[in-house]
Each structure stands twice: as C-alpha cells, then as structure tokens.
C-alpha cells in the first residue's frame, strides 16, 4: 500500500479515481503517480475494475423498462395487492419503519420527537436488554405470575397508565418486570418475555416529550430494537438481531398498546 511518509494518501488515490479529489490536490497526485509506477498501476487496476463493471451492467439502464415496472402498473398492482405487510402498514406511521434505518428522510411522524429521543431511548433500552437478558437467576424483580401487581406498581412509578402486553399468542411468556432509571432521570418500566427455546425479548417504557412518533428500527451488533412513542410514552421493543422476528413481536405489542389507548379515549 501507500508509503507512510508519502505525501499522497491511499484515500486520495481513491478520490482521484472517483473524481472526488479537491482541485488543489490534483497536481500533487498526478505528479506522485508519474513518479510511482506501482501506485499508478494500482490506480489503473481500479479504473479497469470500474470499466468492467460499467461494461457488464451499464447497458441495463438502456433496456426498455418492463411493463410491470411502469409506474402506473406499479400503482395499480399496489392497490390490488394484499401483501402481508400491507396489513401492518394500516397506521400511516408504520410505513416508515418498513424502509427505515435510512439516512433520516423519514418520518419524524408527529413533529416533536427529535432523533435524540430515538437515540437515547433505544441506547438505554438495548443496554438494559443486554444486561438482563443473560441473567438466569434474577432477570426480573417481580415475576410474571404477579402481573396485576407489576402493572400497578410500574404505572405508579412512571406516572403513566401502563399495560403489560400479553404475548401468549406468539408463544412468548411474561417472565416479569423491573424498575429502571430512565433516560431523563425519571423511572422506566422494563418487561421481559421468553419464548419456547429460551429467546428473550424486552419492552422498555418511559415517559417521552413527544405525543407520538412513527415506528423506527435500530440495528445493533447482536440485538435490535423498535422504538415508537404513543400517548407520551416511549416504547422500545428489543430482541435478538433478527428483524422479521422482532417485527412480529413489535406488531403484537403495538396492537395491544394501540387497543388499550383506543379503549381509554
């Protein structure tokens, strides 16, 4: 690779090939390449790679667009289709997370939820998930058998009416819950669920500023989370990094929270 003492970095060589080199470095890089045959050969190899890629695939853009990809066709098919995830998208806000994770074009659904809320809440929730999910003997403070007590206790500490979702329908048993310090110093409620093969999912709830937000996805190394705010309570559903599975769990949680909200109002 490029000599440590060289006045031209390898990054600059890539930038040179890709036309991203600042104009004031052009002369230095050209001179450098003229004097260093091996570096010039490398640059030539990268250019040849790019040429091969363009030669192989460039023509695709010139092909006639197949009928099914014409925009009016796509629209028509969309209306006609009953694809499974369409059901999930019934709440307009939910559409965002299907695509989510992108670069921030998305859905600060209801205005106030800054990206910071998303970051801090999911970070806290994933920390708690990673900390307690490996705990064998004391994963929770209050066992799932005392659901009523758990609900009452955590609702009181949070100062918000909570509901502990029942996830038996997707084969997840409530292990129990505990109280945690929340991101803003206030309390957070934490529930843990366990599946038949020992896989664990957690729900983290704390009061939020925003009245509601769209659903957003956060992917970590080995764990992942879905976040949303409903009725000024932020929810983070965390689990192993398997998006489809987590989406499924989130959907169940979301539906129950939504239903309970509807009942209230």
């Amino acid at each position, binding site marked *: 690779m490029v000599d440590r003492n060289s006045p031209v970095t390898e990054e600059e060589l890539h930038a040179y090939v*890709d036309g991203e080199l600042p104009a004031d470095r052009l002369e230095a890089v050209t001179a450098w390449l003229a004097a260093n045959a091996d570096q010039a050969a490398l640059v030539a190899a990268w250019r040849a790679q790019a040429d091969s890629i363009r030669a192989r695939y460039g023509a695709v853009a010139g092909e006639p667009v197949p009928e099914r*990809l014409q*925009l009016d066709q*796509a629209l028509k098919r969309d209306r006609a289709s009953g694809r499974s995830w369409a059901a999930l998208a019934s709440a307009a806000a939910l*559409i965002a997370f299907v695509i989510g994770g*992108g670069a921030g074009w*998305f859905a600060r659904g209801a205005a106030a939820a800054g990206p910071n809320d998303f970051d801090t809440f999911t970070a806290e929730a994933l920390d708690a998930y990673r900390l307690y999910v490996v705990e064998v003997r004391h994963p929770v403070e209050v066992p799932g058998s005392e659901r009523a007590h758990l609900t009452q206790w955590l609702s009181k500490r949070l100062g918000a009416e909570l509901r502990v979702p029942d996830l038996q329908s997707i084969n997840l048993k409530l292990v129990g819950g505990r109280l945690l310090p929340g991101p803003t110093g206030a309390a957070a409620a934490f529930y843990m669920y366990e599946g038949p093969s020992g896989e664990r999912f957690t729900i983290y709830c704390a009061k939020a500023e925003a009245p509601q937000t769209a659903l957003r996805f956060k992917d970590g190394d080995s764990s992942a989370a879905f976040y949303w705010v409903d009725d000024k309570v932020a929810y983070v559903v965390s689990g192993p990094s*398997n998006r489809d599975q987590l989406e499924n769990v989130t959907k169940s949680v979301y539906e129950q929270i939504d239903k309970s909200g509807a009942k209230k109002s």
Partner: protein
Amino acid sequence: MATFQQNVEATIPALRRYARALTRDSDIADDLVQDTLVRALRSEHLFHGGEVRSWLYTILTNLNRNRLRSLSRRPHMSSLEDNDAPDLAGPEAGGRDIERALATLVEDQRQALLLVVLEGLSYREVAEVQGVPIGTVMSRLARARVQIKTYLDGGRPALRRVK
C-alpha cells in the same frame, strides 16, 4: 418543476441497473425495483425533500439487505466452485469475471462500490444511502477494490462470507 412521480419514473432505468449488479439476477433485481417503487409511492408523504434519486437508492439498498438477511436464515447450500476461479478465456470471460468478483464482496462493500462506479453517486450521497459516515464509505470502497483485485489476479478470495 418535475413532480415526485416524474422524478421516480426517471430513476427507474438506473435503479434496474443498480439492482441487477447488486443481485446479479435479473428477476430478483426487477422484483426489488418493483418493491422499491411501491414503497416509494406509498410513502411519498414521508419524503421530506432532498434528492428523490438517493432516497430510492436507499430504499432499494435496504430492501436487498433484508432479502439477504432472510435468505441467510434459511438453510442454504451454495455452490462454491461456481465462484472459485476466474475464467481464463472466452468472449464473455471479462463480464463473468467481474460478476464473480462482485459476488465475493461483502454486501456493504458491494453497495458502496456499485453506487460510486456504476451509479456515479458522490461519497456524500453514498454515506446518506448507507447511513454511515463518509470515512466508512471510503474504507468499504477501498476494501472492495482490494478484494476484487485479489480475485481477478487469481488469488483466492481473502475472505469468504457465508451469507
């Protein structure tokens, strides 16, 4: 001024090109483009300005990532000899070589390389599409180029990912 739909429409040929190179399978590629279009039109109201083109690349990139994830969960035996050695001759040899070389890349690196050299996106735009800092895009690009060069020079792929 072009409408949102006109902007989407104008990008379809480029999306097909990117998808084809990304998946190296024309049916899968067009499925991806179709899903991208459907989602883009459905969520037009979530598009808060910026470049429609980058946004579409983002959707397509994410959809393909999801597709690969769900594939990786299924028991899947792929033929290794298929991408073991570069072809030495034949009229199509060049095209097949680069296709196989691309197949040995890690998905993130393949995205970065294709978005830059095939789609002509700037480093900054690729960083937006991939949701990472520009420095990460540059290191992905650099690793992709090393890997392809190693492959084409006849060396075995430095790293074979079971994906």
